[in-house]
């Protein structure tokens, strides 16, 4: 978000901020490739896209880490990883790695890091990635930065400069791990752009073993109950989203959001305060503690644009904001701003869209 380079922090409280000699051997960028029932999670590809840039800046290689059962399509996933920029994949195949469990995955990841010594390890900030990252970072006693919105290499130290929202999303901070390796970070799905796949790219597989048997593992996975897809809101992947904030004043006025969404074939989103007031379900929350979205069109009505919301939606191609306050922060990053009362503007905007669509559809027919 900001172009200013982070300054090298001064040593405080007698702590060492220089990288010890023995940790300088750590080289390369790794991405943990999350997969479930045969399919990789797209956040892994988004991370490879970002990891590619970091690796190129450092002049090092980019690798994926894939762990799973022997009957899972790990080679196909590795192939896909090459197409998104990985040069190599570290694979551990073991029956105990079928279905995510903390203990065997933590051991697999920790052992690989200790053996091959990457300088950066990135994971998706999913329930799996966060569970694993927190465990691996503690076991390795290194720094981990959660939910980053920007990853860069600091030119002065060649360290990973990871930016994330802080204080409940009211400010941003850049965090570095200077004297420890690897440097770990998680990134939420959809925060980074999906890279283009190039299926002509190839890579190398490095096989390793886990050294664990089922009886070593205390936790047993008894069952997996898949979510019903029928009533699931797929906000993160929606092309068009109409979102409302507390500027709409009451749940009745929020119906204007649904009206416009219906005309556009859009999903409905909301800010945290709206969700906390119970106007819509939590799964519709856009922002730091909700979903990150990257639609083609995002219409924000009665939303001031606090960072907590902004980080969840500023990746949209086109942002139209409606707000009574011409100084609202949302106008700092919207593409089109309408200064006016959302309750007054929304019905007219809905009608105008409806007429435009009807007219264009007639022309096309």
């Amino acid at each position: 978000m900001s172009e200013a380079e982070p300054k090298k922090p001064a040593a405080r409280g007698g702590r060492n901020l220089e990288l010890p000699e023995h940790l300088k051997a750590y080289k390369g960028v790794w991405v943990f490739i999350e997969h479930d029932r045969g399919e990789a999670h797209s956040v892994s590809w988004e991370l490879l896209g970002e990891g590619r840039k970091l690796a190129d800046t450092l002049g090092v290689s980019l690798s994926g880490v894939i762990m799973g059962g022997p009957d899972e399509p790990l080679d196909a996933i590795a192939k896909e990883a090459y197409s998104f920029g990985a040069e190599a994949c570290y694979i551990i195949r073991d029956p105990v790695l079928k279905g995510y469990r903390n203990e065997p995955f933590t051991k697999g990841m920790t052992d690989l890091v200790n053996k091959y010594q990457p300088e950066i390890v990135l994971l998706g900030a999913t329930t799996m990635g966060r569970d694993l990252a927190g465990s691996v970072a503690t076991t390795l006693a290194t720094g981990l930065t959660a939910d980053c919105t920007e990853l860069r290499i600091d030119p002065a130290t060649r360290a990973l400069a990871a930016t994330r929202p802080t204080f409940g999303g009211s400010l941003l901070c850049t965090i570095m791990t200077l004297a420890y390796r690897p440097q770990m970070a998680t990134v939420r799905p959809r925060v980074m752009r999906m890279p283009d796949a190039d299926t002509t790219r190839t890579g190398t597989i490095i096989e390793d073993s886990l050294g664990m048997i089922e009886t070593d593992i205390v936790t047993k996975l008894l069952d997996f109950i898949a979510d019903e897809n029928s009533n699931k809101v797929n906000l993160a992947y929606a092309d068009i989203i109409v979102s409302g904030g507390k500027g709409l004043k009451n749940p009745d006025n929020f119906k204007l959001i649904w009206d416009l969404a219906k005309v556009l074939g859009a999903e409905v989103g909301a800010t945290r305060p709206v969700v906390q007031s119970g106007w819509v379900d939590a799964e519709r929350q856009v922002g730091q503690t909700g979903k990150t979205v990257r639609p083609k069109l995002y219409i924000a009505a009665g939303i001031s644009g606090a960072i907590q919301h902004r980080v969840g939606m500023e990746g949209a191609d086109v942002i139209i904001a409606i707000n009574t306050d011409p100084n609202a922060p949302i106008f700092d990053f919207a593409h089109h701003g309408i200064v006016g009362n959302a309750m007054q503007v929304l019905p007219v905007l809905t009608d105008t869209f409806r007429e435009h669509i009807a007219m264009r559809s007639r022309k096309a027919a």
Partner: protein
Amino acid sequence: MHIVVCIKQVPDSAQIRVHPVTNTIMRQGVPAIVNPYDLFALEEALRLKDKFGGKVTMLCMGPPQAEDALKKCISFGADDAVLVTDRSFAGADTLATSYALAAAVRQIGKEQKVDIVFTGKQTIDGDTAQVGPGIAKRLGLQLLTYVSRIADLDLENDTITVERRAEGGVQVLKTAVPCLITMLEGTNEMRFAPLENMIHAARYPVRKWNKEAAGIEDVTKIGLKGSPTVVSKVFGPTPRAEKALMQSVEDASPRDVSLNVIQKIFTQHPTLERDILAKAAV
């Protein structure tokens, strides 16, 4: 049965304001609350206590005034509370925090064996979700994150079965006690504190442990010194280089403003118009 619930006192983020010029947090007058996610952990612990009996001990690391957060938990029905407070803990990141809290859980365990440690999913000020897993790893406890339901607890055989939120579904996991559970939000509703509990809580002598009492063995692993991550800068967001095209309903009718916006976005993004028309045609 003995349950330890870890909580954090946090500023009520809904009321945090950032100074528009200096980009610093304006803390004055922002009330401190129990991290809302931790209340789901506490309520779940209290429900287990209602069912199986035993004791719930609260644990918090923070400045002396965090005592208030612990007293709040006593009012809801927790039995005992320990505040780990020492200037040397200041500046701790999640790795250093989990080291200190794990040491304190170990000390609490010396008084009475601990069966389950609960934490919230994450805090509202840090949002990292890293301290729970950190404590579990340091204590060698089985880790169960994002638990949405405790399906079964068998204290004779020391086993527990839970439902854990995963991507695209719910995992049913069975493991051994002792374990550490991070509780998902919205899974229960915190009970009301009866008046007599509030009076009891107000007078409750929260135990305050400094680093020695908390059993810290290695002082290089706590506070700023024990924190691998370094905050290199804190800043406000920057506006987009290109300013938004602004229109006001004071200068033109809502109708004209709407027409103008629609025409502009569709001229600039013809594929967007095609997508919308295609959807409308279905």
